[in-house]
């Protein structure tokens, strides 16, 4: 069974309302039934008492003239007039029975010894009434009537049936009403939850939630909006900072790179040249990082522009493989297709950036002497480039985050450098080309793919 604790707010709200209404109804019906039964019993006592009274008055002469036959006739008449009276007796003052009728086989009536002259007593299904017969202030006998409470059972049964039907109807209505009311509360909560999930996924903090209520949920939503505002303000500041920092870093870095490059050309001493080479290599690395930061800041601010032209991607791939091979002598980077001269329309420099990124990732994440295989595939509409490595691999659950900003795989060791911006930039570039970039799971290692549409110039122009 579902415990109350684990239920959704929606169900809790409905349950609470239904339970409350059922409780109220049950209490109401109990009171109603008790009152009804009490009233019924009182009516029954009153009516039986008055019958006894009439009978008593009519029995005076019967007792005085000792006429049991007449008494019997009277009782029989009584029985036919009110059949609910199942037993009746006329007693004289000694308590002896003058006349009585009783169902066959039943014992003669005997009133309890402690019963007063004018009294009534209930059993489960009967009512016994006694009434004195008084003539000229003299108590000359007693009437005893036993009435069956047939209507009581019927009344009770009817009441219960009525109550159950009404409670069922009420539960139905409360359920409907509760459903409507809970919608007002839980819908807003769910909206908040879903928005938070979406924000968590997209990182888009700037859309505020609108709520027209004026309760705790509204407060919650307002607090949430305030938080989101603060976060998006912080994100904006961070982006601004990245933009400014990367710009400010780039200028001195260009100068340093120029001088180090010059030094590299000028230096003849092999020992010193080695230092300069090393410095130059690190300057290049630094330059790459700064460039990545600049690209991100451009992407964020929407300033990344593509310079579109027609170019041969096959040739571009060969070039990038060659340059990547140059920087990592330990890896074997191979191309594994026969495609030649595949013309596509795009920003050659940016596509090159994507290729370099993927290749350097493949090398970075497959330490040791390993193979990296590049494959080009072409169909009528698309060209697909696949970069396959046999390295550490990326767990499947991380695939959806791998293209996010500043995301680095959990398994990344400290030795593998980078901000986690490369794939984010790649995705943006490919997206801007109308293409797709994705990751495939492999038994060993990873395969990154991107596809670009093959468009003729006219198609491009139309676009």
């Amino acid at each position, binding site marked *: 069974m579902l415990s109350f604790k684990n239920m959704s707010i929606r169900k809790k709200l409905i349950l609470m309302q239904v339970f409350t209404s059922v409780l109220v109804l049950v209490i109401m019906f109990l009171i109603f039934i008790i009152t009804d039964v009490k009233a019924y019993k009182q009516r029954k006592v009153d009516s039986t008492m008055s019958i006894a009274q009439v009978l008593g008055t009519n029995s005076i002469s*019967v007792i*005085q003239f000792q006429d049991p036959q007449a008494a019997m006739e009277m009782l029989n008449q009584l029985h036919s007039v009110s059949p609910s009276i199942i037993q009746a007796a006329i007693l*004289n003052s000694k308590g002896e029975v003058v006349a009585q009728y009783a169902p066959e086989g039943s014992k003669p009536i005997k009133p309890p010894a402690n019963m007063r002259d004018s009294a009534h007593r209930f059993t489960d299904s009967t009512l016994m009434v006694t009434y004195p017969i008084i003539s000229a202030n003299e108590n000359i006998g007693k009437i005893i009537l036993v009435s069956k409470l047939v209507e009581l059972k019927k009344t009770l049964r009817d009441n219960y049936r009525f109550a159950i039907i009404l409670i069922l109807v009420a539960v139905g209505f409360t359920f409907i009403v509760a459903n409507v009311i809970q919608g007002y509360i839980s819908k807003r909560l769910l909206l908040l939850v879903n928005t938070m999930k979406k924000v968590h996924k997209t990182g888009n903090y700037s859309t505020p939630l609108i709520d027209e209520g004026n309760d705790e949920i509204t407060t919650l939503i307002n607090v949430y909006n305030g938080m989101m505002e603060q976060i998006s303000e912080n994100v904006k500041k961070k982006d601004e900072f990245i933009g400014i920092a990367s710009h400010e870093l780039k200028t001195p870095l260009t100068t340093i790179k120029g001088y180090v490059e010059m030094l590299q050309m000028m230096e003849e001493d092999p020992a010193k040249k080695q230092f300069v080479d090393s410095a130059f290599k690190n300057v290049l690395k630094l330059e790459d990082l700064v460039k990545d930061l600049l690209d991100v800041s451009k992407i964020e601010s929407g300033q990344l522009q593509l310079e579109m032209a027609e170019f041969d991607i096959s040739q571009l791939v060969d070039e990038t493989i060659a340059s990547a091979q140059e920087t990592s002598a330990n890896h074997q980077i191979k191309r594994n297709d026969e495609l030649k001269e595949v013309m596509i329309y795009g920003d050659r420099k940016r596509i090159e950036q994507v290729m370099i990124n993927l290749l350097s990732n493949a090398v970075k994440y497959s330490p040791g002497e390993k193979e990296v295989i590049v494959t080009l595939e072409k169909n009528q509409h698309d060209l697909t480039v696949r970069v396959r490595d046999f390295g550490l691999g990326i767990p499947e659950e991380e695939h959806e985050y791998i293209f996010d900003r500043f995301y680095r795989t959990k398994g990344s060791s400290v030795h593998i450098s980078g901000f986690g911006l490369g794939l984010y930039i790649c995705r943006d570039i490919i997206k801007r080309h109308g293409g797709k970039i994705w990751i495939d799971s492999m038994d060993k290692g990873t395969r990154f793919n991107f596809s670009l549409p093959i468009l003729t110039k006219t198609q491009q122009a139309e676009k």
Partner: protein
Amino acid sequence: MILKKLLFIVLLSCTGIHVSAQDATQEANLKAAFIYNIAKYIDWGGYNNRNEFIIGVVGNSSKVIIPLQEIAKNRTIANKRIVIVTIDNLAQIKDCDIVFISKESPFSLSSILSRLAPGELTISESKGYASRGTDFNFVIVDQRLKFEANLKAISSSGLKAGSQLLKLAIITD
């Protein structure tokens, strides 16, 4: 004490007293009580201006006289003291409220009936007397003491009998 006992038997004990099983005294007691009880159900009108209620018994050897006298001691009818007289002379009849014509009556019925004044009730205990003109007549039916009522006679005497009384009576013409 005797009276009390008697009243008990007569008024209150109703568990089928079989007349034939009793002796004559018992029957007389019952009849006396019936006379008293019948008197209670009669609307006596304004005929009696006296301070007492007179029950005349015709036949001075009747056993009913003694129990009637017992009843008269501390009971009243129509708020009047009860006086029991024996009627030896037909001239006494006009001064009674109830005339009880016993079996021992020395007079003929017609001679008694012809001397009744308005507002007088006649009760007899001889077979066929009710149909011959008395208002009430004691009979034994199924070994029980019962009484006949002659409605014509009652109304012609200017009296009214209560329905409670008449419902127990055997009505005769």
